């Protein structure tokens, strides 16, 4: 019997103008999970954007610090984002992610130059059978 899919809902963020006045809203698919590094202390729940356009999981260096990871001991990589901006990242293995009742080993590229955690194709999408985005219903179904 197949497991029930994990269902998450988009979260709505305000859009502000340069004066800080709210001028609209935007919805983003955020999922919460727990993390640990090499069977260490559990951290979270924390949220990240499920980003089908990201190749790898990409997290700010603050999270590495909390997990007890020495940032610069990771494998050095370069990540290119929109507008061709390149940032230096450090890939770390040995990280376990717990999404509701499902867990898997993964890698995360950490960087001091990014702020918002992103979950990408390698290390997140490839850990599940199927991920379906429904923009109309503002939900994401994740099949394990």
């Amino acid at each position, binding site marked *: 019997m197949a497991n029930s899919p994990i269902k998450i*809902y*988009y*979260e*709505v*963020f*305000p*859009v*502000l*103008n*340069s004066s*800080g006045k*709210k001028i609209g809203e*935007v*919805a*983003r698919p*955020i999922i*919460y999970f727990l993390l640990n590094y090499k069977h260490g202390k559990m951290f*979270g*729940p*924390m*949220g990240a*954007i499920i*980003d089908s*356009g*990201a190749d790898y999981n*990409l997290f*700010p260096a*603050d*999270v590495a*610090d*909390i997990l007890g990871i020495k940032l610069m001991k990771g494998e050095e990589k370069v990540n290119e*984002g*929109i507008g061709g901006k390149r940032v230096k990242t450090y890939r770390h293995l040995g990280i376990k992610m717990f999404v509701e009742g499902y867990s898997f080993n993964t890698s995360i590229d950490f960087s001091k130059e990014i*702020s*918002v*955690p*992103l979950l990408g194709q390698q290390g997140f999408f490839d850990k599940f059978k199927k991920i379906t985005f429904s923009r109309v*219903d*503002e*939900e994401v179904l994740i099949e394990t």
Partner: protein
Amino acid sequence: MNKQKIKGLEKYSDKWVALDKSKTTIVAGGKNLKKVLADASKKVDKPFLMRVPPLDVSFSP
């Protein structure tokens, strides 16, 4: 549909926030993740942590 709306998010553009279990109420916020976690942990058990994207620009990761 179950749109999540976090109250008072406008004040936390490009900062960490910690939410209570409803995931709609901010219990702590700021630039320093460790401090946000420590402050939130005094108020609630297992706060939900999230980095708020910058709110005054389009965010295209």
